[in-house]
């Protein structure tokens, strides 16, 4: 007895659907829906999170992310220029920095800055400075490599045209090369912004006052108070409010770049 290829494909697909239906049935029957609803979708608990989860937590997440991104972008640009410098020690320093900070967990940087520096130097850094440094130092390492690639992607003729008009090397860099490089790396830089948004949750490690809570810390606190996962779910949705549009933006920017080529 022989069956055709099409029959076989149909049989396999039918089997896959059957498995899915069985699994869904088992989950639906076995799960305690009342319990699950109480844990994840407790309406009273959900209501109690507003408006603070937006006006404090979401806002702080955005502020921390932008602080880290701004510092990281500036430092990353500097590192990229050092990486391309004709002076070897600058190149070595930049490479060492980039490899170091890309190779260690961001968590370690937060611990070092949040607890290590105050203990070792007997100074209390401003919370915002700590957050800016902790997020920015790691972000800078990644952004440096991205920006370097962008600078190298600007056609050689651009520098030659600028120099032939009498611009100095540094003037040409600032006015002609870097603006074009940043345009080229806009999509990957936006991706970096998404990563930083999520990494900003590490701030919860630092002992923050109530008004400084960002989404993750806020959610964790509310979880303890209410013994419900609902605040965590809402915090997650708040992250998505930031990251999904940014992700969409990245895809549109990439499409635009692809079309311009």
């Amino acid at each position, binding site marked *: 007895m022989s069956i055709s290829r099409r029959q076989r494909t149909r049989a396999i697909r039918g089997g896959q659907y059957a498995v899915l239906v069985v699994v869904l049935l088992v989950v639906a029957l076995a799960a305690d829906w009342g319990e699950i609803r109480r844990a994840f979708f407790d309406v009273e608990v959900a209501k109690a999170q507003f408006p603070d989860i937006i006006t404090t937590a979401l806002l702080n997440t955005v502020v921390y992310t932008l602080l880290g991104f701004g510092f990281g972008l500036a430092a990353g640009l500097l590192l990229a220029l050092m990486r391309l410098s004709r002076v070897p020690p600058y190149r070595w320093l930049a490479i060492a920095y980039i490899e170091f900070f890309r190779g260690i967990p961001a968590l370690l940087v937060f611990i070092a800055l949040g607890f290590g520096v105050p203990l070792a130097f007997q100074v209390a850094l401003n919370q915002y400075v700590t957050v800016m440094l902790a997020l920015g130092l790691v972000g800078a390492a990644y952004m440096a490599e991205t920006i370097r690639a962008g600078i190298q992607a600007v056609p050689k*003729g651009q520098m030659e045209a*600028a*120099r*032939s*008009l*009498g*611009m100095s090397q540094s003037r040409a860099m600032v*006015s002609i090369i870097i603006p074009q490089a940043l*345009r080229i790396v806009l999509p990957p830089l936006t991706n970096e912004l998404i990563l930083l948004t999520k990494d900003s949750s590490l701030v919860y490690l630092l002992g923050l006052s109530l008004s400084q809570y960002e989404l993750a810390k806020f959610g964790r606190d509310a979880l303890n108070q209410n013994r419900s996962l609902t605040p965590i779910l809402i915090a997650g949705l708040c992250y998505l409010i930031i990251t999904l549009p940014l992700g969409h933006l990245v895809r549109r920017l990439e499409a635009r770049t692809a079309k311009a080529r």
Partner: protein
Amino acid sequence: MKAVSAAGDAEAVSGPAIDVRGLRKSFGTLEVLAGIDFSVARGEVVCVIGPSGSGKSTLLRCVNLLEEPTSGTVTVAGTEVTDPDVDIDKVRRRIGMVFQSFNLFPHLTVLENLTLPQRRVLGRDRAEAAGIARERLARVGLTDKESAYPAQLSGGQQQRVAIARALAMDPELMLFDEPTSALDPELVGDVLAVMRSLADEGMTMLVVTHEMSFAREVADRVVFMDGGVIVEEGAPEQVIGAPRHARTRSFLARLLTPATADLTEAAEAADGAGKRSGPV
């Protein structure tokens, strides 16, 4: 028989626009320029012709030091640019350069392409720079394109903007490196017309080109290069019309009738052969 004043900078005032002596240039072990001597007088239009790879671009790029000569001297309007103590940025702003690939700044509008270098290099204020930019754009016939971005223009329009950008710096001389080789044939004429009018106004021009009709009609002198040396130079009717050297003759034969020559060689000899407007 030029009158030489008693002033110390008489040389700078009356000397040649470009003077090249014993110029050599090597890339690693490859010697691209093997001893070049020539000069361009003020107001003179000199066309450089020759097969691909003969060192024409390198020669041009040595004049404004985009390439560092291995040995020899280059003097531009009395300033020895190969002197290590010379501020090369100051020299370059006096020399306009037009590239085969236009090299407009794509992130700036046409007007900004013309005003940014004026403001950053010459220190002109915004209004003055814009005024000069508009005058130069009018000269190349692109007044209506000042707020366009380079990508919105045809190749011929881009190249005319590039010429206007160089002119906005009030250069004493202009270098052109195959300015029409990247253009569709129907766009070549507009660019050549602009160059022709520049020549008529007395601009000193050193032009690398495969446009034999342009060389014939506009050039005061034609230089034929091959293998990193100047093989022959002279009036266009002599070098193009009655070449003395066999190498010149075979180059011109291949350029004018690429179909009869070895195909790969012809394509190489004249990267713009298919795009030239043809001999008149």
